[in-house]
């Protein structure tokens, strides 16, 4: 056993696949400890909040303030609303309303802003200017006004009885807050999805569900395939014919079509993750059965099997003790591929809206499905689907790598 293990871990492919897979497993186990709670909880109002760190403004204004005199601050502030393209657009506005700009250098912020302040009028509708452009200039003007006014901003509360505002604090443009002093800072490394759920948290929970689906489906498929393969290969004759007849029928019907039809007929309210896993397992056993059968056929006339038969061992015992150990390595490899296949199948089904029902648990496929329904791919909300895609790819890549690694160890024709 030890020897086999060391042999296995000697193959680079297996080790690499194993490391990736373990990494995913560790993330799955430990991330919920760092960030506990319901993965389906809606944390942000609105769809697709960007990845990043969110600071509670409410708490920040109550935190201890430091005064930092930074020379670049006003310039940075201006830069955030007045980019190069905005400057070019401003010149376009001057031209549209026929204001002579003379030798204005658009890098000369002061001159540009002075001219803007003097002439811009949001009520003017320049001939031929689109509403989109007029809106743009209005927004630009508003944000410039906000940034250029360096007066303090007053915070106030409203008196409950008189409805009057009472000043509690004035905020200067030199006031800073240390992030550590703010009571509520929320990191959303992968932003939120269409429902406003924390994507990373959901992703980790989805990995767990998808792996469970993979495991259940893979086990079922492998068990069915193994049993049928063993029986048909070992017993042969009419039993073999019947089983192979059924297997061949399933071979010619594409498994995915079958999967779609069964999932559809089950109906959504009945489709939990386990049901979906069972359905996937029931449709994926075919190739395992065929492969096991052919291996068993080559095994069944070996001497030790005949010896067992002569000793009067029953069928079950012969299969378990004399045949199974010889194909065990193959079965394990088949199981790995089945798991990877089942995870992909779940993702495919869910993309079509035929996956598990949506509210109870997240799965990788459902996350993809919802981000597609909300056209995240068209609107650049990459965090809603790309990490999921990557995870699916990594899981199936790592499982396949492990499988190839095992193959190198156990397949005599590939052995170094």
């Amino acid at each position, binding site marked *: 056993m030890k020897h086999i293990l060391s042999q296995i871990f000697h193959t680079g492919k297996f080790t690499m696949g194993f490391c990736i897979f373990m990494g995913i497993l560790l993330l799955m186990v430990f991330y919920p400890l760092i960030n506990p709670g319901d993965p389906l909880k809606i944390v942000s109002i609105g769809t697709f909040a960007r990845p990043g760190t969110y600071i509670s403004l409410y708490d920040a204004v109550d935190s201890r303030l430091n005064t930092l005199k930074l020379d670049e601050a006003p310039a940075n502030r201006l830069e955030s609303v007045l980019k190069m393209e905005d400057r070019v657009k401003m010149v376009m506005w001057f031209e549209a309303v026929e204001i002579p700009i003379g030798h204005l250098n658009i890098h000369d912020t002061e001159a540009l802003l002075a001219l803007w302040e003097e002439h811009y009028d949001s009520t003017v509708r320049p001939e031929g200017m689109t509403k989109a452009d007029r809106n743009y200039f209005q927004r630009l003007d508003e944000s410039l006004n906000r940034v250029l006014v360096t007066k303090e901003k007053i915070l106030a509360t409203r008196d409950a009885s008189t409805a009057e505002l009472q000043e509690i604090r004035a905020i200067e443009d030199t006031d800073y807050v240390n992030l550590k002093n703010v009571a509520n800072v929320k990191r959303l490394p992968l932003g939120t999805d269409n429902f*406003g759920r924390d994507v990373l948290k959901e992703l980790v929970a989805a990995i767990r569900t998808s792996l469970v689906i993979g495991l259940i489906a893979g086990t079922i498929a492998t068990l069915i395939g193994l049993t049928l393969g063993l029986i048909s290969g070992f017993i042969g004759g009419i039993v073999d014919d019947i089983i192979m007849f059924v297997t061949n029928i399933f071979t010619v019907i594409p498994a995915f079509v079958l999967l779609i039809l069964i999932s559809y007929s089950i109906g959504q309210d009945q489709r939990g993750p386990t049901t979906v896993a069972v359905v996937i397992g029931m449709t994926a056993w075919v190739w395992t059965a065929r492969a096991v059968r052919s291996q068993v056929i080559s095994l069944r006339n070996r001497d030790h099997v005949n010896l067992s038969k002569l000793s009067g061992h029953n069928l079950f015992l012969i299969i378990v003790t004399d045949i199974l150990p010889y194909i065990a390595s193959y079965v394990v490899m088949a199981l790995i591929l089945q798991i990877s296949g089942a995870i992909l199948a779940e993702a495919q089904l869910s993309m079509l809206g035929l996956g598990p029902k949506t509210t109870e648990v997240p799965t990788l496929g459902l996350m993809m499905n919802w981000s597609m*329904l909300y056209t995240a791919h068209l609107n650049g909300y990459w965090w809603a689907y790309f990490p999921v895609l990557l995870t699916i790819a990594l899981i199936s890549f790592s499982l396949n790598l492990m499988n190839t690694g095992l193959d190198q160890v156990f397949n005599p024709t590939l052995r170094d």
Partner: protein
Amino acid sequence: MKRKVVTVLLALAAFALFFSCKPKESNTAVAEVQKETEAPAADASSGTLPRNQTLYWAGLQWGSINGWNVLSDDMNNFNVSRQAYGTRITMFETLYMYNFLDGSLVPLIADGAPQWNAGKTEVTVKIKKAAKWSDGTPLTAEDVAYTYATAVKIGNTAGNSNKPYIAAVEAKDAQTVVIKAALDASGAAKNPLMLDNYLAVEYVAQKAWIQKLESRTGSDATKMKIDPAEDVVYSGPYGPYFADDQKVVLVRNDNYWGKDASMWGKLPAPKYVAHTIYADNAGGEVAFKSGEVDVSQQFNSNVQDLWLKDKLPISTYMSEAPYGICGSLPTAYFNMAIPGLDNVNVRKAIAMAVDYDAIIANAMTNQSPTFDQVPRSTMNPTPGEQALYDQKAVANLQWVGNDVAGANALLDKAGIKDTNGDGIRELNGQKLSFKASCPNGWTDWMAAIEIVAAAGEKIGIEITSVFPEWSVYQTVVTQAHQMEYEIFMMWSDGSSPTMPWNRVRQLMSSEYVGVEGNWSGNWGQYSNPKVDQIISAIPATTDPAKLKSLYTEANKIYLTDVPSFTLMYRPNCFHAVNESVWTNYPEDGDGQNIPPGDLIHGYSIAGLYTITPVK
């Protein structure tokens, strides 16, 4: 052997031929139109329309059209479509155009305002002298009367829906139409509102053409309704030009009567109006962003990103949220027959606990006013409808939502408590557990239902979401006594000349209780004789003060009994424009009073006369 193979192959070929021919059959008519219209201009094939003379829509047409028959309900043609908030009048016209901004009727074929008689039992409409058909013959009162008579005779939607309320449409002379209301036992009009609705919604077809159709089909109602009408005569500014499964194109009729000073005084700006047929929303969205589509009736989630983030020349009617004029009220109905939901406290508690801000932010991406801005009632958020009830009188009944403490207190006070400690409350020993449903794939509704389900958890009521396919959903919801869906979403209609009366009716009228195939309303089977009285009283009421008190009373009952609860406001139609090719679209505050109805619904077609090419 060889012979056998040949036979089999032949059989297969015949089989294939049969199936490949079949879909074409239904399209021959369209293809013929295409041939006919293609002949005069060689550049007519779809790809080569001059872009700067063509206005493209998206979100109005799915799948290829079946024809141009104005008497049919089944043309799947975006130009032949009656909508309560504004019938589409590119090709066929109505007597009046409905303006959902202020609820007014703007004369189109009609000349001046409709004249009611003293008893409000009949209304007289004058026809514009200038009005003409595309074949040059004048449009007369006779056409109006004959269209209605035919509609009733062949039993299309226009006929069936108006028949109970309109006794007759008569031509007094060539320029005068009299519409007589059906009368009730007391001799008053059954429902004068439905006559207003008729004036704005129903198309006028040419008598001569209808007669031609009758002689062609032997006056067979079914045949008349499925005729693709490639020879149809129309009165609108645009006529058929090209249609296949990729695109539908209409070309301007440069002899359009509306250029007369008594109507528009000019022709609409685009020479062609076209609709590319996209496979799905995503296809339309991509085309809209790239400027291939000018006016989009599709829901663009986070529409502001299109200009803020993507910096596209796209704008909406209003520059800030909610970006458009909301008219309809997507609503969750309680099935009153379900034990537990027959208890008003349970219903109200669920409705109070739901986080509507989250629904509006998530499902509508803020393209709806919040319930803080427009408190809930049976009214849509337009100022016209809001002014029709006394807001102060019902203020203490309205809830804003996300009031978990209030909902819990309400349930506790009513003695509905969790007695066995499983976290779920019981009523009469039964666990409060419900299923919330809406059709699968209707993403905004699905998101809303998810949020309703989440609210249940917070107040100790188990709500699980179920999303059946629409094909299943629609058959179950419209059944007389369905017990399958417990909390479920349906709509309540948007703006129309019969609103808000019709919405009150739709939300609460017991006339729909136990009706098989009920597409009209009150799907939760709520029944209250007091409301029924109000509903029957409103249409005949003309005194504004009386009307206001009736609406206020109806709202009091609605907000007290909570037979359903509105989840968000939604525009009658979505309206976003890409100004790559055309500009000067109607906008909020431009003083033109043109509604954001995609330049095709009712009076919004006026936008086709204001737009100009981008320089």
